């Protein structure tokens, strides 16, 4: 029982230690791949257990909740852990050829696995202060990964990333302190019970706003997203892929968790703000992307825009809308990580990610073009790819409660997303290469081709699977939403000890 929950958490740190010790040899990178493959197995076991029992919880160190630290997994946590493991495995295979020896000697693989450990910890913990600690684990390893290599752009982007994230951390910490002062507990399930008995509910709303801003910075919502497009295009491609896939989504996860479990007292106020934030995030993100001319910068702004859709699902707070948000999270992580990986291959073959300087990929590398087409137009919401169903569920949820404006914004942003995806498609793939180079995939060594293309193809295949058989995934997302909106099972499992 205990081990199903603790294994996915322990594995990345174990891998990190091994990878660090073996960082001067080839063994280090293979430890990373093997560790993440085992992590995927462990997370699937966890998923099976959660599907079987609903919510599972375990008390660390044998201290009964709410006094000890609880690890807890419901549907949402479990699926996030699985998707984290998938992304981690894909990126660790990609990194075999993407990360040069110098970065390996500096401990890339160790940092990467610590980052994964932090992400998994944030998804599995049931304790608010422990969530803060996992955020910090994630943050410090992401700092390291971001500036690894020490190029000028990396230092420049790193400063903005570090400073803005540290401010959010401090807001989060103060919020925890105040919430503890009011409820006398740090256990999230216990807090959900205790928060209703707080006399001054106005103060609860104030603290809720502190959490909204703190997690909002992490999730990169409007108007707190400026660190993201400043930093995400600077590090190695493996790093920006895992950042793009996972980091902001931890912020979204924390928002969903706190604003369904704890801060559901003043929905008219908090979730109205979230709805505005969602609409503005979608619009500013996609407009920012339209102004960019570099593949990774366009994709970075698209992260911001897509986060808006997930926040929209949370803000509407109907069963269908939250299900849409969960579905969107899962689909988005796979697609977004994949697009950054593809940008890496484009740079390796065509020489740049700047759209003015590349071209001809469709003619010379049709395989890459197909592999790009799937996630790119899934992101834009083409039927029958996974993004179409994600957007469909969310827009249907908005129309269901007659939120015409937000539905219209969501559809309009979808259109604009298509516009910027066609821009990448036309510039990088269709137009001939400006320097007359043939960016064929054979310019890569056979080994690099294998390591770079297999993860991309696997992730694209997953996008297709979700796209062509969305039913089980939508059903799962609806179950997850039901659990989130009625957290009775979550609370009783955590507080009732080993269930």
């Amino acid at each position, binding site marked *: 029982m205990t081990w199903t929950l603790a294994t996915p958490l322990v594995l990345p740190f174990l891998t990190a230690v091994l990878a660090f010790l073996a960082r001067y040899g080839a063994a280090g990178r293979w430890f990373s791949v093997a560790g993440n493959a085992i992590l995927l197995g462990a997370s699937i076991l966890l998923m099976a257990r959660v599907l079987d029992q609903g919510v599972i919880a375990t008390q660390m160190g044998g201290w009964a909740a709410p006094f000890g630290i609880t690890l807890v997994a419901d549907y949402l946590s479990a699926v996030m852990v699985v998707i984290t493991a998938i992304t981690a495995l894909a990126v660790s295979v990609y990194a075999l050829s993407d990360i040069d020896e110098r970065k390996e000697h500096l401990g890339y693989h160790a940092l990467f696995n610590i980052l994964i450990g932090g992400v998994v910890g944030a998804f599995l913990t049931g304790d608010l*202060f422990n969530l*803060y*600690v996992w955020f*910090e684990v994630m*943050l*410090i390893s992401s*700092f390291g990964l971001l*500036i690894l290599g*020490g190029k*000028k*752009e*990396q*230092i*420049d*982007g*790193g*400063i*903005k990333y*570090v*400073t803005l994230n*540290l*401010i959010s*951390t*401090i807001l989060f*910490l*103060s919020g*925890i*302190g*105040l919430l*503890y*002062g*009011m409820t006398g507990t*740090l256990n999230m399930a216990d807090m959900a019970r205790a928060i209703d008995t707080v006399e001054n509910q106005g103060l609860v709303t104030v603290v809720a706003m502190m959490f909204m801003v703190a997690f909002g910075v992490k999730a990169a919502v409007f108007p707190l997203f400026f660190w993201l*497009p*400043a*930093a995400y*295009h*600077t590090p190695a491609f493996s790093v920006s892929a895992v950042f793009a896939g996972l980091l902001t989504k931890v912020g979204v996860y924390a928002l969903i968790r706190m604003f369904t479990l704890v801060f559901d007292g003043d929905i008219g106020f908090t979730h109205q703000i979230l709805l505005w934030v969602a609409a503005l995030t979608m619009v500013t993100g996609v407009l920012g992307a339209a102004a960019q001319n570099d593949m990774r910068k366009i994709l970075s702004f698209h992260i911001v825009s897509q986060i808006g859709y997930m926040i929209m699902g949370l803000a509407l707070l109907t069963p269908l809308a939250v299900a849409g948000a969960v579905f969107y999270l899962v689909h988005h992580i796979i697609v977004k990580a994949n697009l950054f990986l593809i940008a890496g291959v484009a740079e390796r073959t065509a020489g740049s990610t700047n759209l003015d300087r590349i071209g001809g990929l469709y003619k010379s590398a049709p395989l890459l073009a197909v592999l790009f087409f799937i996630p790119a137009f899934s992101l834009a919401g083409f039927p029958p790819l996974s993004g179409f169903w994600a957007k469909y569920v969310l827009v249907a949820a908005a129309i269901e409660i007659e939120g015409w404006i937000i539905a219209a914004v969501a559809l309009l942003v979808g259109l604009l997303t298509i516009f910027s995806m066609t821009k990448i498609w036309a510039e990088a793939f269709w137009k001939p290469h400006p320097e007359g180079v043939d960016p064929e995939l054979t310019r890569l060594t056979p080994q690099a081709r294998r390591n770079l293309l297999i993860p991309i193809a696997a992730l694209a295949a997953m996008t297709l699977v979700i796209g062509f058989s969305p039913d089980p995934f939508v059903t799962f997302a609806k179950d997850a939403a039901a659990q989130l909106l009625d957290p009775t099972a979550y609370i009783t499992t955590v507080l009732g000890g080993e269930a």
Partner: protein
Amino acid sequence: MEALIAITIGVLVAASVYLMLARNVLRFIFGLVLISNAANLTIFVAGRLTEGAPPLIPVGADGPVGDVANALPQALVLTAIVIGFGLFAFALVLMFRAYSTLGTLYSDDMRIAEPRTEDKT
């Protein structure tokens, strides 16, 4: 005592916001140190202050006797201080690297990752 600490927190936050609004990133970092200490004090005071009653268990007893201070906020603050120290050390080194590679500490001049349109040639 609460009032005194509350005022201290207010002064710390005000000073740190003033520092963080500066264009010099070194001043920003100093502001960050101040505000993280303000956050630590917030946790401490939100856990209720009990004066002169350390949370100690007398020899031979199974639990604390009489009124004792809440030990949890102290543990939280300790954790936060340690983490904050690590992050601060990293941030300082990053600023130093920024100064040696970019040659400036003014955030307005840090436009290498996102060049202005007129700089793009």
